[in-house]
């Protein structure tokens, strides 16, 4: 893959997360009932950062979890055999019944991953409310799904990709528009 254009640098990324955090706090005053669940893999780090910002601002410790929706995807039987996506860790070490769950992902594209995540969450319990926070909405939705909290909306081609790097595992914070090359 080839880098086409930088969409956000570290500063812009932090500002976006700070704004999303403020918007979440504006809409939710019952903090003990609030929890943040990040989607594998980069959404996990965004969720932790949002939870840390809320904790710092409001002096509370927010529960955070990790969700992998691979087993709930709708393309299992359409993929080439023996090329299944790796099942990653799901770790939601608290009861989500009657909680408000903020689901965090890096990129909103077709909406299919979010659909899978909603089903996966429902198998963990019955939250009072689920809201979706994403850093980038790149369009091309195939399902009636939208973000409640959004970092930035951009226009992309379907064959392009949006790639987030986070300092926790990629040594830097940045967001790139990528082009898939023939050789990929």
């Amino acid at each position, binding site marked *: 893959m080839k880098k086409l254009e930088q969409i956000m640098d570290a500063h812009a990324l932090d500002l976006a997360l700070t704004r999303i955090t403020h918007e979440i706090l504006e809409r939710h005053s019952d903090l003990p009932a609030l929890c943040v669940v990040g989607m594998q893999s980069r959404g996990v780090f965004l969720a932790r950062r949002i939870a840390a910002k809320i904790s710092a601002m409001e002096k509370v410790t927010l529960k955070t979890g990790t969700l*992998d929706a691979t*087993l*709930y*995807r709708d393309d*299992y*039987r*359409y*993929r*080439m*055999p*023996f*090329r*299944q*996506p*790796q*099942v*990653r*860790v*799901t*770790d939601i070490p608290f009861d989500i019944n009657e909680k408000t769950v903020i689901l965090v992902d890096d990129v909103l594209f077709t909406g299919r991953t979010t659909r899978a995540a909603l*089903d996966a969450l429902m*198998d*963990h*319990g019955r939250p009072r409310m689920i809201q979706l926070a994403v850093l980038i909405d790149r369009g091309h939705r195939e399902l009636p799904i939208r973000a409640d909290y959004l970092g930035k909306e951009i226009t992309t081609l379907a064959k392009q990709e949006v790639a987030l790097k986070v300092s926790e595992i990629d040594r830097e914070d940045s967001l790139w528009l990528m082009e898939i090359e023939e050789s990929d």
Partner: protein
Amino acid sequence: MKLQARHLLGLEGMSGGDINLILDTADSFYGVLQRDVKVVPTLRGKTIVNLFYENSTRTRISFELAEKRLSASPLNFSASTSSIHKGEGLRDTIRNIEAMKIDMVVVRHSCAGAPYFLTQCTDAVIINAGDGLHEHPTQALLDMMTIRQKLGRLEGLKVAIIGDIFHSRVARSNAWGMKTMGMDVILCGPPTFLPQHHDCLGVPVTDNIDEALEGADVVMLLRVQLERQSSAVFPSVHEYRDRYGFDIDRLSKLKKDVIIMHPGPINRGVELASNVADSEHSVILDQVTNGVAVRMAVLYLLGGGENG
């Protein structure tokens, strides 16, 4: 990520990368089994035949549960109630079952190589649930998953496998798989229970139980398959227990964090003393729980795509 193989016939020749992929995937399914809702929709619409030509309770139930928890549709076929009593051959049986549009076949058979034979006459994915004296790969995978879960790693650990090595497909699959994963395996049993060609499994073999147990991190006892023994190779239960039975006395000489395993069903008081089987060192019931997770992982990794 993908498995190199299309079928799971055995662990001989399987790469460490594939074994790790199965074990990592199984850890994720272990998480699913801890939830209130223990079902995921992944294999919805897939039909899986459990073709059991040999009696089995726990392996068949474990596979069936794994299939149900992945939302697949299991179909059970056991030899005692089927048309093989009427003389139908394996090839015809599988062709008939295949004609009913199935996706995967889990097979147990008394002949070594039966699962491989099936891959030659059907397009369905074949999973070996035990073939003759050859292999029982999902048992070895669940054993390795349990060891990793309890001791945190596989590489460098010493495993003593004790019992009727010759008749044990569990020992064979474990010897191959564990050696690939860098474990130090030693097989032990009375001389009549050992393979004639000692080096054929690529791991040391001994009839001296004290030598086998020395420094062991894991002790795996095998069931004395009383139904398979003739008096020529197996003099008496008492003699076996006295010389090779694993009791509290032998346990007390081992490492403090040693784990005791058994593929079940146990002959209590023969190969394994009752109080050891129920001790805190025993992980026998963890093996059973992990068996479902490992089988879910194998079904998941091999079951994708359209039929065949």
